[in-house]
C-alpha cells in the first residue's frame, strides 16, 4: 500500500515544472464583473463605515443620535420650504460650517452630493425650455412664430433652485450618515414612530448585503483563479446568470436561517428593542436651533 491511502494519483499529476513564463503580454486588468462587484462592495462599505468620522470629537458627534436625526430632518424641511436661491445658499453655507465643526471635509459632502446632482440635472433638464417654463428668453434655439423654442430665465432659475435644494438635502443627509455610526442610525430610527420590524429589516438588509457581496466576490475570485484563457461573451453571460441565481438562492437560505436563529432566541413576530440614549441640554439646544432655522425659513 502506498502512502496516499489508496488514492491513485495519475501520472500527469506527479510531474512538476516550475519555470518563468516565456510570455510578455499584459492583460486588461480587472474585468467588468470584478469592477462592478468591487464598486458595489466599496460603496456599501463606505456607507456603513464612513472613514471613522462618527468616532471624531466634533459638533454633531457629541449630540444624541436621536436629537441629531431630528435636527437634520428639521433642516431638510427648511431646505424644502426655502424659495430663493440665496436663502438656500445660506443654508448650504451653514451645512458646510456644521460639517467643519464636525470635522468632516466639505469635499466629502460634495463627492457624495455630486452624483445625485448630476442625475437630478438630467431629470429636470427639460424644465429649462419655454414649453415647460415660459418666460424671458435667454438662449433662443428656434424663433419660429408657431413653435418658438428657447431656454427661459424662469426655467434656469427654477432648475438652479431645485438643484440647490437637492444639494442641501443630500449634504444634510450625508452629514448625518457620516457623523453617525451605522448602529446608532438604526437605534435612532427605532425611537421614531416607524414600525420596528421595518427598521430591523432595513438594518439586517445592510448587514447581509455585506455577507452576500463577500460571497459574490469569493465566487468571482474562485473562477478567476481557474480561468486560464479569457471566456467568450456568451460564456461570461451564462456564468453571470448562474452566479446571480446562486446569490439569490444563498440569500433565501440565509434569510430562512436568520429567521430560525431569531425564533430560537424568542422572536415571535414583533421585534422588541431597548434604547439607552440619554438626552442632555446640548441635545435640546440643537433641536431648538434647528427649529429656529425652520421658523426663520418660514418667514422668508
Amino acid at each position, binding site marked *: *500500500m502506498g502512502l496516499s491511502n489508496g488514492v491513485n494519483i495519475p501520472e500527469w499529476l506527479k510531474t512538476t515544472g516550475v519555470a518563468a513564463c516565456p510570455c510578455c503580454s499584459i492583460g486588461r486588468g480587472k474585468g467588468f464583473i470584478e469592477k462592478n462587484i468591487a464598486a458595489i462592495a466599496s460603496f456599501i462599505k463606505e456607507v456603513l463605515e464612513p472613514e471613522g468620522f462618527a468616532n471624531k470629537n466634533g459638533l454633531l458627534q457629541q449630540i444624541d443620535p436621536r436629537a441629531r436625526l431630528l435636527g437634520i430632518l428639521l433642516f431638510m424641511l427648511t431646505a424644502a420650504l426655502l424659495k430663493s436661491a440665496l436663502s438656500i445658499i445660506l443654508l448650504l453655507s451653514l451645512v458646510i460650517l456644521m460639517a467643519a465643526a464636525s470635522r468632516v471635509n466639505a469635499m466629502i459632502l460634495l463627492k457624495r452630493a455630486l452624483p445625485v446632482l448630476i442625475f437630478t440635472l438630467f431629470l429636470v433638464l427639460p424644465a429649462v425650455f419655454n414649453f415647460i417654463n415660459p418666460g424671458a428668453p435667454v438662449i433662443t434655439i428656434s424663433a419660429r412664430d408657431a413653435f418658438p423654442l428657447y431656454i427661459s430665465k424662469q426655467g434656469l432659475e427654477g432648475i438652479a433652485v431645485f438643484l440647490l435644494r437637492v444639494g442641501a438635502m443630500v449634504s444634510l443627509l450625508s452629514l448625518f450618515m457620516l457623523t453617525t455610526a451605522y448602529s446608532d442610525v438604526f437605534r435612532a430610527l427605532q425611537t421614531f414612530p416607524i414600525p420596528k420590524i421595518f427598521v430591523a429589516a432595513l438594518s439586517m438588509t445592510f448587514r447581509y448585503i455585506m455577507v452576500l457581496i463577500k460571497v459574490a466576490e469569493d465566487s468571482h475570485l474562485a473562477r478567476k483563479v481557474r480561468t486560464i484563457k479569457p471566456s467568450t461573451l456568451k460564456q461570461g453571460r451564462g456564468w453571470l446568470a448562474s452566479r446571480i441565481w446562486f446569490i439569490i438562492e444563498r440569500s433565501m437560505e440565509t434569510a430562512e436561517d436568520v429567521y*430560525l*436563529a431569531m425564533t430560537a*432566541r*424568542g422572536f415571535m413576530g414583533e421585534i*422588541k428593542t431597548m434604547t439607552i440614549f440619554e438626552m442632555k441640554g446640548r441635545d435640546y439646544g440643537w433641536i431648538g436651533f434647528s427649529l429656529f432655522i425652520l421658523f426663520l425659513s418660514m418667514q422668508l
Partner: protein
Amino acid sequence: MNEPLFDIKGVSYRYSDKYIGLKDITMQIHSGESLAILGANGSGKSTLLKIMAGLVFPSFGSVIALGKPLTQDILSGEFAGFFRSKVGFVFQEPDVQVFCPTVWDEIAFGPLQLDIPKDEVIKRVEDVLDMLGIRALKERQPHHLSGGEKKKVVLGAVLSLNPDILLLDEPTNGLDPRTQVWLFELLAGLRKFKKTVIMATHDLSIVEDLTDRVAVLSEEHTIVADGTPAEILKDKDMLLKVNIIHEHTHRHGDVVHIHSHGPFARHDEHEDKQ
C-alpha cells in the same frame, strides 16, 4: 428516573418531501445529561437538533419536550416564550445568528424578546460580556469580528437567556485551538451547574472530554449506537462504518503504521509494517 426533557419517538424527516434527513429516531434525553450526537456530514445531526429546538418539525413521529408535544401550534402560543427561554440553540454558521447592529444589541436581543425587565437585561448583557471576555467588542458591528469572536458573541447571545438546555451544532467548527480550549472550559463549567448540553459533532475530542452519552447517526440517517463515550469509542468497526473514523497509513521513520484515524487525530492502535 424523572420525566425526560425530550422524548423522541419514531421521528423521520424528509426535505422537500423527497430527500431523507432522518429515519425512525427514538431516544430520550434527561435533565443534566451531556449528549453528543455523532455522525458524518449529512447524517442528519443538525436536523435532529433543529427538531429538538422546535425550529423544524418531523414528517413522521413525535417529540415531547418539557412535557408538551412539540408542534407548530404549541410554539405559536404561550408555551413558546417558556420553551425559548429554556432551550438555547447555537447554529453551526455564526453569520446567520449575528443580525443586530452591535454585539451589545446581539446579546440583549433574546432577553428583550422574552420581556425580561430592562434593568435585568442590562445586567445580563454586562455579565455575559465579562464572562466571555468580549467587553471590548460590545460596540463593534458583528460582521467585523473574526470567526472565533463571532462564536463567542453567538454563545453569549444564547447564554443571556439563561437556558437550561443548550443545543450546539458543530461547536468547534472553524475555531482556532485557543478558542476551542476556551469553549471546552466554558462547556465544562456549564455542566457543573447541571445544564443539559446536547451537541451535534464529528469531533471525537469533544466526545471524550465533555459528554457522558453519545448517540451515533449513520449515513442512512438512523441511530446505530447509543452509549457512554467509552463504549462508543471502543467500537472501531461501527465508527468506521458510519464514517466517523477512517483507516489511515503513515510513516514514522522507517516504520509504516496502519491505524484508524478520526478528524482530531485519535491514534488508538498501530499496526506496524517494516
